[in-house]
């Protein structure tokens, strides 16, 4: 027999921690946008992103992509720490103790509430050692404008750091489709760096996502450490 009174009287029934109307708070008088835990958030106007891209390209030329990826990487490490800490505290369990569906919902909700667009994770290639991530409505892609190759380097670095921390293994990340190249979404493939590295050349050859993924999966298993 279920004692409903115990259920209704519990301290709180966890809902969506990242519900936008609850998660993002602010005090315009103090110039603050904060999350519900009081950690400061910063809204990036498009003009600032655009200026960052232009400034970097002007200062370091072709190395700008690498710099942006590194920025994303450091951002991702801190993002993971905040995500793990806030979520664990609210739900009363660590990320490792969560069911996969809970974790996925939280990451999707967080991504959306942070204004990064939509994110979907595809574990179909898990057995081959790869994780496919798709994002949509990326401000980073929109501001970057049309180019020859995928250009969400910040997100690529962020995803690499986030999933490296989550899995406890260093993971590389390559982007295979990009909204800045008129694709419907941005696709990223994550895997061990030595396995992912081969994809960088294929991306420069403008091979499509499916071909790249297929070639990665057909790599000899011996290369997996």
């Amino acid at each position, binding site marked *: 027999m279920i004692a409903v009174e115990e259920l209704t009287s519990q301290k709180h029934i966890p809902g969506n921690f990242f519900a936008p109307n609850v998660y993002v708070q602010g005090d315009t008088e103090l110039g603050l946008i904060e999350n519900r835990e009081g950690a400061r958030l910063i809204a990036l106007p498009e003009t600032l992103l655009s200026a960052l891209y232009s400034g970097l390209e002007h200062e370091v030329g072709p190395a700008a992509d690498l710099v942006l990826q590194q920025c994303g990487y450091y951002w991702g490490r801190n993002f993971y720490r905040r995500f793990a800490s806030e979520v664990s505290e609210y739900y009363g369990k660590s990320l490792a103790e969560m*069911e996969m569906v809970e974790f996925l919902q939280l990451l999707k909700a967080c991504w959306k509430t942070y204004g990064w667009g939509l994110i979907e994770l595809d574990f179909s290639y898990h057995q081959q050692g790869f994780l496919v991530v798709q994002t949509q409505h990326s401000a980073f892609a929109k501001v970057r404008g049309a180019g020859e190759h995928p250009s969400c380097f910040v997100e690529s670095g962020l995803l690499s750091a986030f999933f490296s921390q989550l899995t406890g293994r260093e993971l590389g990340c390559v982007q295979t489709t990009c909204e800045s190249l008129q694709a419907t979404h941005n696709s990223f493939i994550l895997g061990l760096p030595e396995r992912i590295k081969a994809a960088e050349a294929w991306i420069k050859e403008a091979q499509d996502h499916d071909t790249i993924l297929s070639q990665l999966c057909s790599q000899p298993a011996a290369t997996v450490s």
Partner: protein
Amino acid sequence: MQSTFEDLARAAEDHYLQPTEMNSFKQQVDALQDRLTVYEAIRDHELVIFQTIADQLHKEPASNSPSDIEKVLTHWIAVLRYSAMAMLMDQPEVLTDQLGWLTDVVSGDEYLSLHQHISELLHQCLHSVLAEDQIMLIEPFLQPVDAALFSEDSNRELVVLG
């Protein structure tokens, strides 16, 4: 608090509310009073509603474990709280912001019949504690829950309240 109030509040930019606008404002106040009454009724009957549902589930052969039933029931308690708050505030997003979480974490075929059963029992219980015109106020805020749980459309996040 709700869009109509906000729209009327913006009128202060250039004029005092005129008779038709005052009427609209008064209607909003009356509607808010009705919603408050429904909200209080649901709040005060929460325990009765869900104990009735739990007792009914207990009487019937279950394909889910007791812990699963408790987990799903807990989510329905939360769903009704968010639905009632969304109705009170007349802000559908109070519910939609939660639906992805509340439905997906207990989704899956193994829960489907349990969800359907709880949903039916919940509607029955609400009919027993609310008048028909009160049901009409909360119903639009329960339909999206059913749609999110039972729709064949896998992209549940796109479910939008009308």
